[in-house]
C-alpha cells in the first residue's frame, strides 16, 4: 500500500497538493484548442471537521473552474450557501520518488473566504478512503492509500 509521510506541524495535518480542473473541463478546453490552465500549488490540510473537501476561492478563480449546483451549509457563524465544483488533485511527497495520491474528478465546495493558512481542506470524503496514522510525540503522520 503506498504511503506518504509528513511532519505533523503546529498548524495541523498539512499536505502539499496540486489542484487542477476535472476531466470534463480539461477535455472541453482541449477539444476547443484552448490551453489548459496550469495546476495550482496548494497548501492542503486533512480536516475531519469538513464533510466535503473545500477549496479556497482564489484557487478556483485561478483555475477558472465552473461552479455547479449550490448547496446549503451550516457553519459556526450561520447558514451559508456554497457552490459545488469538480476538480482534480494530487497530494505529493516533499521530495522526488515517493507515491502520489491522485484523484481526477473530485467534488468540492468553495470556502467562504480565503483562509490565511490553508488552500484546500481535505474532508471526510477523502478520509474515508485512506488510512491516516498520527504520531503526535514524533510529530509526524502517514497516509496509506
Amino acid at each position, binding site marked *: 500500500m503506498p504511503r506518504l509521510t509528513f511532519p505533523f506541524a503546529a498548524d495541523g495535518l498539512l499536505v502539499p497538493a496540486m489542484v487542477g480542473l476535472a476531466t470534463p473541463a480539461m477535455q472541453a478546453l482541449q477539444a476547443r484548442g484552448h490551453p489548459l490552465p496550469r495546476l495550482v500549488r496548494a497548501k492542503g490540510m486533512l480536516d475531519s471537521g469538513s464533510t466535503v473537501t473545500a477549496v479556497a476561492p482564489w484557487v478556483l478563480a485561478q483555475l477558472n473552474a465552473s461552479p455547479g449546483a449550490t448547496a*446549503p*451549509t451550516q457553519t459556526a457563524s450561520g447558514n451559508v450557501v456554497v457552490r459545488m465544483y469538480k476538480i*482534480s488533485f494530487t497530494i505529493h511527497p516533499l521530495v522526488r520518488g515517493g507515491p502520489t495520491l491522485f484523484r481526477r474528478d473530485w467534488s468540492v465546495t468553495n470556502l467562504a473566504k480565503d483562509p490565511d493558512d*490553508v488552500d484546500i*481542506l481535505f*474532508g471526510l470524503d477523502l478520509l474515508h478512503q485512506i488510512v491516516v496514522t498520527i504520531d503526535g510525540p514524533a510529530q509526524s503522520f502517514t497516509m496509506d492509500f
Partner: protein
Amino acid sequence: MSEDGTDLVWRVHQEALEQLLQQPIQRTPPDDEVHLNLPPAEPGSPVAAEWEIFRQEVVRLIREGNRGKFALVKAGHPITVWDSLRDAAQAAQLLYGEAPSMVQQILPYLRPLSMESYRPCRA
C-alpha cells in the same frame, strides 16, 4: 490516437509534479519572510496592551523557533513561551492570578478555530 480524458488529467498532473519536484522545496519560510497578518487590538479590549506587545514580538518569537507554541503575555512583564495551551494557561494562573493576561498561539496570523466555520452540513 487521441488522448482520452483520463489520460489527459493524469498526464497534466504528472508533468506538473515532475516540474515541481525538480525545484528545491522550501519547507519553512526564511526568517526574513514571515508575513504578519494580525489585526490591531479591538478598541476597549481588556488585553489591548498585551495584544499589541504580541504583535510587536511575534516575528522574533517565530524566528527563535517558537512557531506553534503558546505565548503568555502580560504588559510590563517578559513574554514567556509554553509548549501547550494548557501549560500557558496554568502559568497565567500561577503568575498573574485573576489579573488580565493573554495567551496566544505563536503564528503570524489569526487561525480560525478548527475551521469549523467552513464545515458543510451533514444533513
